[in-house]
């Protein structure tokens, strides 16, 4: 049977998520560029910057956005190129685990500062 089943209903949510997370990442990039221009320098400088609660929160938001954005993008690539369901599920799982791992690790690093 080769019936095409569609209607998973998460298309809009994912599309919106990618746009919103994209905006967060763009704003964070601008913020970092501004920090660089303002002369933030060396480990001391960065550590001082990161000690602000707002900056930590913003960075946290950035990491979550990055991972979520990447999840949708990478998953779409698997969906486009990998057709067998078993392999695709494995790849999805590995991607998700890796991204969660990265996020956890990055957050841990920030909070350690």
């Amino acid at each position, binding site marked *: 049977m080769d019936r095409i089943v569609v209607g998973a209903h998460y298309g809009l949510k994912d*599309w919106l998520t990618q746009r919103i997370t994209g905006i967060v990442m763009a704003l964070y990039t601008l913020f970092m560029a501004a920090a660089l221009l303002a002369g933030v320098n060396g480990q001391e400088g960065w550590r001082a910057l990161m000690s602000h609660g707002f900056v930590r929160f913003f960075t946290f938001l950035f990491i979550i956005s990055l991972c979520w954005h990447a999840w949708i993008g990478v998953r779409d690539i698997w969906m486009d190129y990998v057709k067998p369901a078993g392999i695709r599920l494995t790849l999805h799982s590995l991607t998700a685990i890796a991204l969660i791992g990265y996020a956890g690790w990055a957050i841990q690093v920030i909070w350690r500062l």
Partner: protein
Amino acid sequence: MTTRTLQFKIYRYDPDKDQKPYMQDISVEVDSTDRKLLDALVKLKAVDDAISFRRSCREGVCGSDALNINGKNGLACLTDLNTFPEGKPIVLRPLPGLPVIRDLIVDMTQFFKQYHSIKPYLINNDPPPERERLQSPEDREELNGLYECILCACCSTACPSFWWNPDKFVGPAGLLAAYRFIADTRDQATSERLDNLEDPYRLFRCHTIMNCVDVCPKGLNPTLAIGKIKAMMVKRAI
């Protein structure tokens, strides 16, 4: 009458005798009355009657003769012979991404299946009135740039998203048609139409690459229509 010789490189494949497709070098004499690529193709067929391609109206409204011309999709009957650079062969291939039946003729089943999947007909369950359903000129104007589609498939077969998922992504032509009915004030099935498209593949495989806009021989803009569908979905969700 002045004549000149045109060089072609044409994709040839006859499943009856060819193991696999090949590119054939062939040339043809054209004269000053031959203005369009289709005129040259007709001349070619007079020389070699086995060269196969579709054609009908020869004025760009029937959508039969869509080809991949020097790497870009277009209609043979609207492609001016003068636009080709001198001294270089004209490379003709079938539309990319669809199975080839023979030479320049592709199997368009998948393309039409997607068109049919969006319910391409007006849905209005009110009993039809005696006279026409009224529509203001402004509301009618919303359909401009949508209803003119000739289903030539230049757009969908230029779309990488359609290449990867022709069975699941509706493609620019089908989505343009979907919006044509969504935008029609006489149609009552907007919600169902949006439901039908709210899927990671059917609509959202459009990554605004805009090849469709680039190749449309009628100057239509499927990407814009797709954007409007997405905007309606967002509006509906919030």
